[in-house]
């Protein structure tokens, strides 16, 4: 089968430190992929490189009919790539000067050129989907962490991106808000949205992902369906990691 998202030979260095050391990944349309692994192995960097929040030094990213080559990526390529991907941040990163509704509308009006009326209608639709129909006029500072992260997911959903990237979406949350955010991500996953999620919630990854990718030291060590990774991992490093977190 052909890949909807095709990543080839991605390399990212910070100074002398090679954080990503040749990552290859292929996501089928509608595939939900979870990346697991020890801290500091480049999981978040991989996600950030896919959105060019960190610029990779080498490698190629293909999303649908768009290919961006790290060695000669222009500003316009990077914007095009970002318009096809939605990013959910660990710390939510809602626009602090905008209400929940305006956070969701921003990409639609500013980037996609929708009219204000259209964008308002879509934003209100999303607000009720994420269970915040009555909080559209609230500013981020007035919302709980769980509510903010739901808006963060709504903002990414609004763009109808071909790929959603979740960077440890529940790691910064108080335990009491984790459940509601995982529920929402589960619902997004049920819609067969192609997504890549970096998470430390192993049970959750096992539930929603079609494929688990285990990373260590900037490389992909092993990948496979959850049943294989969690039940019958082939690599010692994968088994060692799962023992530690399990």
């Amino acid at each position: 089968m052909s890949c909807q998202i095709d990543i080839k030979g991605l390399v990212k260095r910070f100074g002398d430190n090679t954080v990503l050391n040749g990552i290859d990944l292929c996501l089928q349309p509608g595939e939900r992929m979870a990346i697991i692994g020890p801290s500091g192995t480049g999981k978040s960097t991989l996600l950030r490189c896919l959105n060019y929040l960190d610029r990779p030094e080498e490698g190629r990213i293909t999303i649908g009919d768009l290919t961006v080559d790290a060695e000669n990526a222009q500003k316009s390529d990077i914007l095009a790539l970002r318009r096809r991907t939605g990013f959910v941040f660990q710390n939510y990163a809602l626009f602090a000067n905008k209400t929940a509704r305006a956070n969701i509308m921003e990409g639609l009006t500013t980037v996609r050129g929708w009219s204000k009326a259209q964008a308002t209608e879509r934003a209100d639709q999303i607000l009720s989907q994420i269970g915040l129909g009555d909080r559209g006029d609230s500013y981020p500072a007035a919302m709980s962490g769980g509510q903010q992260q739901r808006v963060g997911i709504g903002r990414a959903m609004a763009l109808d991106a071909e790929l959603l990237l979740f960077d440890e979406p529940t790691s910064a949350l108080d335990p009491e808000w984790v459940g509601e955010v995982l529920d929402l991500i589960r619902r997004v996953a049920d819609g067969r949205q192609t997504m890549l999620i970096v998470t430390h919630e192993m049970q959750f990854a096992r539930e929603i992902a079609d494929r688990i990718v285990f990373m260590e030291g900037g490389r992909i060590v092993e990948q496979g369906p959850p049943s294989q990774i969690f039940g019958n991992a082939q690599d010692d490093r994968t088994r060692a990691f799962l023992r530690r977190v399990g």
Partner: protein
Amino acid sequence: MLDLIPVIASYVPLTLFMAIMSMIAGLALAAVMAVIRVIKVPYLHRIVAVFISFFRGTPLLVQLFLFYFGLPQLVSGLQNLDGVSAAIIGLTLHFSAYMAESIRGAILGVDRSQWEAAASVGMTQKQVLTRIILPQAARTAAPTLMNYFIDIIKSTSLAFTLGVTEMMGAAQKEASSTFLYPEAFLVVAVFYWVIVETLSAGQRRLEHRLGKAVSR
């Protein structure tokens, strides 16, 4: 002494005109310079750094004399530069240097994740700045910018040294013709004070409004 009040009052509009013009032009220039320094526009950010260094590093009075008495000798088009215009140019450039630095500080104070979040939805750098970063920086910078506006109002009194009859000049004229020196300068002092206090009340209301996004 009461006769002095309407005389000085009639020069309030000129003082306010110079102050407001300098503030608007200075703020626009400062915002542009702050952005140039933050995103490090090639070459331009070095020029801006020198500009800021010069206008912060030399006295305002020297700068005003330079524009009013000095430049017309060097640039033929400026021979008819009047004192009011020279004062506005001098105040604009001088205070834009200070305001650029406080706006730059406010921009740098906006969390990096705000830039990233805006970039991640596909905004161009210009959109990120105008829609997300500058509105947040404006809130942080507002109190200091207001302080500079107050400083500008008081500094318009230096236009008197360029032969402009504004509030201070009027007080000086009245004082020397009536010999009511303490009275004249006390009256003009009270005028500046009242103008500044009126503005400070406005500032408190503005900050309250800008603070809405962060209040619970």
